[in-house]
C-alpha cells in the first residue's frame, strides 16, 4: 500500500480520540457493515491502525478516501488548529447570486490553473458552510496530503476562514477565492483564534449583543444563593452596578471565545518633558496584539470586578512600535466605566534616556 496512505491513516487514527472514532468511521461510510463490526474500539491505537490499514487495503481505498475521513473529522471538530479570518472586498454585480455548483467549478478550475498538482475537496456542511480541503503539490511533486489547508466560506458573506496556509500558498489561494466568489480583492480581517466557531460567530453577528431599547425584555430572575445570612457584603451594591454595566457592554450570555485580536494604531506622544518624542511630525505606528485564552470574557470580568488595570496575566498585550527611537515600552490598559473604551498608558523611553517618560494616551473603541 502507498506509504502516504499509511502515514496519513496512522496520523489520523492517532489524532481522533477513541470515543469519536466509531461515529467518524460510520459517517465516512466507506466500510461495509461487517468490517465496521469487526473493529474493536477498545484496542490500543496501534492495533486499531493495523486493523484499519488491513480493511483499507481490502477495499482498495486511496489517499483521496483517507482525506475524506480527515475532512469529516475536522468538520466535526473545528476548534482545533489555528484559524485566520479574511474578508473579501468590493463585490461585483453577481456576487450575491453565486450558487454552490458554480462556486465549486470555478474554484477548482481557477486553482488548478494556478498550480498544477493540487488536490481539492469541497463539501457543504448542514449549516451552509462550504468546506474546502486543499493538498498542495508543485510542478514536480504530488500533492502533500500531510499538510492540507482548510478553507471555510459561507456563500453570500464576505468572510473566509483559513487554517494552515503558508505564505507561498497564500497569493494562489487568494486569487482563486476572489475569482470564484466574484469579489475584487481579499484582505486580512486581523482576527484569529483556535476556535473557528468563535470567530465565525463574531463575524456573522451570531452572538448576543445588547442594545439600548425602549421596550426592554423582562430580565431573567437571578436567584442569588445566600450562603450565610449573617454575612452582608458591603460592596454588594456597587458590585451589582458594575456587573450591570459589564453586561450592558458585553451582553449577558456566552461570548465568542477569541484568542487574539490585532489592531493597527497610529498615535501621537503626549508628554511635555520629552521633547524629542512630541516633536515628531509623523505619528507613531503601532501594532497592538491582544492575546488571552478567552479575550472578551477577560475584559468583561475585569469590568465587572472593578479592576481598573487589566491584569497582564489574563490578557497579554504586546505593542510593537515602529520607531527607531523607542527602545522600551510598557503598556498598562485601563477599562473605563462604559467598558467600551480601553485607554492605554504607554510608557516609552527613548534611546539614551533611562527614565521612562509619562504617558501617551491611546484610546481604542471596542466593537
Amino acid at each position, binding site marked *: 500500500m502507498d506509504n502516504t496512505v499509511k502515514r496519513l491513516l496512522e496520523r489520523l487514527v492517532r489524532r481522533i480520540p477513541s470515543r469519536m472514532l466509531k461515529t467518524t468511521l460510520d459517517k465516512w461510510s466507506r466500510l461495509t457493515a461487517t468490517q465496521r463490526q469487526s473493529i474493536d474500539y477498545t484496542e490500543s491505537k496501534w492495533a486499531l491502525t493495523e486493523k484499519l490499514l488491513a480493511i483499507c487495503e481490502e477495499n482498495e481505498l486511496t489517499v483521496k478516501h483517507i482525506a475524506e475521513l480527515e475532512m469529516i473529522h475536522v468538520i466535526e471538530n473545528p476548534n482545533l488548529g489555528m484559524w485566520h479570518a479574511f474578508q473579501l472586498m468590493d463585490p461585483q454585480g453577481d456576487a450575491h447570486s453565486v*450558487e454552490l455548483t458554480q462556486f465549486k467549478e470555478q474554484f477548482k478550475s481557477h486553482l488548478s490553473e494556478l498550480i498544477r498538482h493540487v488536490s481539492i475537496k469541497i463539501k*457543504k456542511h448542514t449549516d451552509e458552510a462550504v468546506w474546502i480541503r486543499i493538498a498542495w503539490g508543485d510542478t514536480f511533486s504530488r500533492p502533500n496530503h500531510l499538510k492540507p489547508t482548510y478553507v471555510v466560506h*459561507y456563500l*453570500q*458573506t464576505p468572510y473566509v476562514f483559513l487554517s494552515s496556509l503558508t505564505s507561498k500558498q497564500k497569493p494562489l489561494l487568494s486569487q482563486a477565492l476572489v475569482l470564484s466568489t466574484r469579489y475584487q480583492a481579499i484582505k486580512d480581517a486581523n482576527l484569529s483564534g483556535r476556535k473557528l466557531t468563535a470567530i465565525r460567530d463574531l463575524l456573522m453577528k451570531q452572538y448576543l*449583543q445588547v442594545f439600548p*431599547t*425602549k421596550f426592554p425584555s423582562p430580565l431573567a430572575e437571578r436567584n442569588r444563593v445566600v450562603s450565610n445570612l449573617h454575612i452582608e457584603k458591603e460592596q454588594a451594591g456597587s458590585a451589582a452596578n458594575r456587573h450591570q454595566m459589564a453586561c450592558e457592554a458585553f451582553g449577558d450570555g456566552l461570548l465568542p471565545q477569541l484568542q487574539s485580536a490585532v489592531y493597527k494604531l497610529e498615535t501621537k506622544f503626549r508628554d511635555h518633558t520629552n521633547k524629542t518624542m512630541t516633536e515628531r511630525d509623523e505619528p507613531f505606528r503601532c501594532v497592538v496584539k491582544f492575546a488571552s485564552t478567552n479575550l472578551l470574557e477577560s475584559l468583561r470580568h475585569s469590568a465587572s470586578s472593578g479592576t481598573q488595570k487589566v491584569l497582564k496575566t489574563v490578557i497579554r498585550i504586546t505593542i510593537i512600535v515602529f520607531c527607531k527611537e523607542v527602545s522600551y515600552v510598557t503598556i498598562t490598559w485601563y477599562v473605563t466605566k462604559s467598558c467600551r473604551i480601553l485607554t492605554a498608558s504607554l510608557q516609552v523611553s527613548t534611546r539614551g534616556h533611562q527614565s521612562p517618560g509619562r504617558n501617551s494616551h491611546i484610546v481604542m473603541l471596542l466593537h
Partner: protein
Amino acid sequence: MVCERKQCASGDRTGTTALSRVTFTGQHCGYPEVGGVVTQQPPKSKTCKRSGCLHRIKYVQKNKEKDSGNMEGAPAKGVLSHLSLLEVKARSRKTQLQQHSRVMELKAKVEALKTQREQLKAQIQTHQDLQKLRLAMDKQCADEEEENMEEESENSKLLRLMARHTQLKDLLHAHHLIGGYDIIKTRKGKGACVSIATAYEDVFLDTFNLEIDLKPTVKISRHNIPPFIPLNNLAEQNNMQTDLRVFLDTLSKHLNAFAGRKQQLKLVKEKHKSVEVMESNVLCSLLVLLFTVPREKTAVLCTLDYTDHTRCLPTRVHLESEDKQLPDSPQWKKNCTLLMETPVHKALITMKKMGSIA
C-alpha cells in the same frame, strides 16, 4: 419637673406668668433644680406637701429683663445655683426658638404645598387644552382641511408644538405595535438606536438593532445584522445622510423578507419530511428541493430562485426530472405557478393534497 429626690411628692415649682415672664426657681431640699418654662402660677403653699417632710420651699421671683431676682438666690447657694440659673435661661431661649422655628417650618410647608397645588392646577389645565387641540388636529388631518394661519400667541404656539409632539409619540408607539421599527435617542441626542422587528405570518421573529451616530455625520457605529444583508450598500444607495427613513424602510423590507424566507425553510424542514432539501444558503435566496412522485417514484428536482431579496416569494421556479415529459404536463405547470404565487410550505401542502408529490 419633679424633684429628683426620692419619694418627694413636690410637683413642678417653676413657672412663668404670661404677663410678667418671670421665672421662678424653687430650691427644695437643698437640691437645686431647674424647671422648664411653664405658664403657671406659683404655688401658694410654702411647705413641701410630703407628709413628714418639713422642708420649706423658697421661691425666688426673678424678672428676666431686670435680672434682679437672680441675685437674691445666687449668693444664698453660690456657684452651683448660679450655674443652674444660667442653664434655665439657656434652655428657655432654645425652646422658644424651637417653637418659633417649628411654626416657621409649617408655614413654609403650607406655602410650598400651595404653589404645588397651583402648578398641578396649571398642568391639568394645559393637559385639557392639549387634548382639545389634539382632537382638533386629528380631525384636521382626517378632513384634510387647511390649517388656519392666524396669528397665534406664544402660549398657543407652544401648545400646538406640544400637541404635535404627543401626536408623533403616539404615532411612533403605533408603529412599534404593528411591528415596524423603533428608534430611541442615546448618548444625549448624539446617537440613536434603531430596533427593527421582523415577523412572518403573524409570528414575531428576530429583532435586529442598529446604533447610529448622528454627529458629526450620520454613520452606523454598531449593529447585529448578519453580513449577507448588504448594509453598507443600502446605506449608500438610499443616502442615509439625508433620508434616514427611506434607508430604514428598505432595510426593514430586506430583513423582513429574509426572516420570512428563513421561516418558510424551517417550516418545510419540519412539516414536510418527505421533501428533501438539497441546497439552501445563509441568505435563503436559493432553495433546491427533491420531490418524489407517488406511485411512479420518479424524482423531481425543483429550484426556487429568490432573486428579489425584498420578497418572500420566488422569482423563478425551475423543474427537472428523469421523466422529461413531467415538467411540461399540465399538472406540473399548475404546480409551478402555485410555487410562484404561494409560500413554499403552503404550496407543498396543496401539492400533497392533489397527489403530485408524496
